[in-house]
């Protein structure tokens, strides 16, 4: 199907009306890289492209308060570079700043938008693990309603039936001290990140670590989460508990199957996870148990 029209939406409602119109098959375009890929591969199937980059609220970056919690609200049409360059980003969210500036090469960071990468769920470096680790949320607008969903839940969700637009990303502003470790595999230095692991833990006052969360990202396959990992506390930490921990991570990885592709993915992620966990456990193990 050839694209017959290109609409520069000026308001969110205009964009929502366009994509909800059952008479015309419309597709959103923001940075354009995803649409370009669809055209090159011959599977762009719509009558109309709806450009949402000229809608002012889609480019907003401001601190907002919702249900008593403060968030940095990032309009979904902001490119990854625009988000990284925000005044608040480096100071409030050093982790997010770090992953945004390393998410791809400069030209593609100027092309990829927050909404675009989240809508397609195609990884951009370590962006998805970082957004999940920060408990970020997405604002989804539909023709007659708006909803908010955690990025982590969004990444695991299936295709939405009703037409929607991701209008913003909400990143909670929380001064929570966390221990973090990031390890990545790049195509070449300082090239694209093809796989990465992010491990976060709350550092307890007594030196223990709690609420350990492990996220991985893998080129083409998207976000990998490891659920049900127990808390580890210094006072109760034993060699057996660490073994149990690494075994539960391995169990997650084994769910990918046994074919050669799964084995390769497992090998890459396992290496990165184990390197991060070694960093996490070593300082604790150095002291007598």
């Amino acid at each position, binding site marked *: 199907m*050839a*694209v*017959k*029209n*290109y609409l*520069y939406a000026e308001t969110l409602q205009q964009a929502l009306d366009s994509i909800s119109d059952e008479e015309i098959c419309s597709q959103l*375009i923001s940075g*354009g*890289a995803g*649409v*370009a*890929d669809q*055209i*090159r591969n011959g599977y*762009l199937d719509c009558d*109309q*492209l709806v*450009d949402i*980059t000229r809608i002012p609220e889609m480019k907003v970056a401001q601190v907002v308060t919702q249900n008593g919690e403060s968030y940095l609200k990032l309009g979904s049409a902001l490119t990854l*570079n625009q988000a990284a360059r925000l005044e608040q980003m480096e100071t409030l969210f050093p982790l997010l700043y770090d992953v945004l500036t390393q998410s*791809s*090469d*400069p*030209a*593609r960071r*100027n*092309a990829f938008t927050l909404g675009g990468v989240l809508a397609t769920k195609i990884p951009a470096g370590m962006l998805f693990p970082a957004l999940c680790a920060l408990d970020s949320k997405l604002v989804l607008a539909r023709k007659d309603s708006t909803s908010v969903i955690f990025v982590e839940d969004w990444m695991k969700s299936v295709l939405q039936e009703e037409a929607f637009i991701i209008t913003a990303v909400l990143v909670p502003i929380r001064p929570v001290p966390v221990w973090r470790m990031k390890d990545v595999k790049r195509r070449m230095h*300082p*090239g694209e990140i093809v796989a990465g692991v992010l491990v976060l833990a709350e550092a307890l006052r007594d030196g223990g670590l709690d609420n350990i969360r492990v996220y991985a990202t893998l080129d083409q396959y998207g976000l990998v989460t490891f659920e049900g990992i127990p808390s580890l506390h210094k006072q109760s930490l034993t060699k057996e508990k660490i073994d149990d921990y690494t075994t539960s991570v391995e169990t997650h990885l084994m769910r990918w199957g046994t074919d050669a592709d799964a084995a390769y993915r497992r090998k890459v992620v396992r290496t990165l996870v184990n390197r991060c966990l070694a960093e996490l456990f070593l300082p604790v193990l150095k002291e007598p148990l």
Partner: protein
Amino acid sequence: MKIHFRLNGSLVERQIEPDQFLLDVLRNSFEMLGVKEGCSIGECGSCSVLVDGELRKSCIMLAAQVERCDVVTIEGVAGEDGGPNDLQQAFLDHGSVQCGFCTPGMVMAGEALLSENLAPSRDEIREALSGNLCRCTGYQQIITAVEDTAQQRRSALEEK
């Protein structure tokens, strides 16, 4: 559909298809043949241009997206006399050009960096050029050319 934009300083308009790539419009409708088509999937950077001052790959961008934007191609960075500008001259002086196919994209990426940072480290230059592939030079001479131009522009600013 018709689009209007500024191309290398001049206001232009063209009739295009809604799904036409910027790369194709620049090369075929405006004869900007310095914008090279390499991989066509945003990997090699040989089609790099500046859109509103930001580095973009014109093979993964639709022409319709540049409506009312300011587009600069390699043809727009030449010196006032039409000869190479200081960065292009540095490429020549440092042997940064072999087959030359990647050179326009490399120069555009270099210009994008220097417009923001006139004192880049070699690592920062390497990062700025990380979306541009060169299969001839091994990159070192290209990095040196950008580094040298940054120094020249800094000196020129200090003299003023």
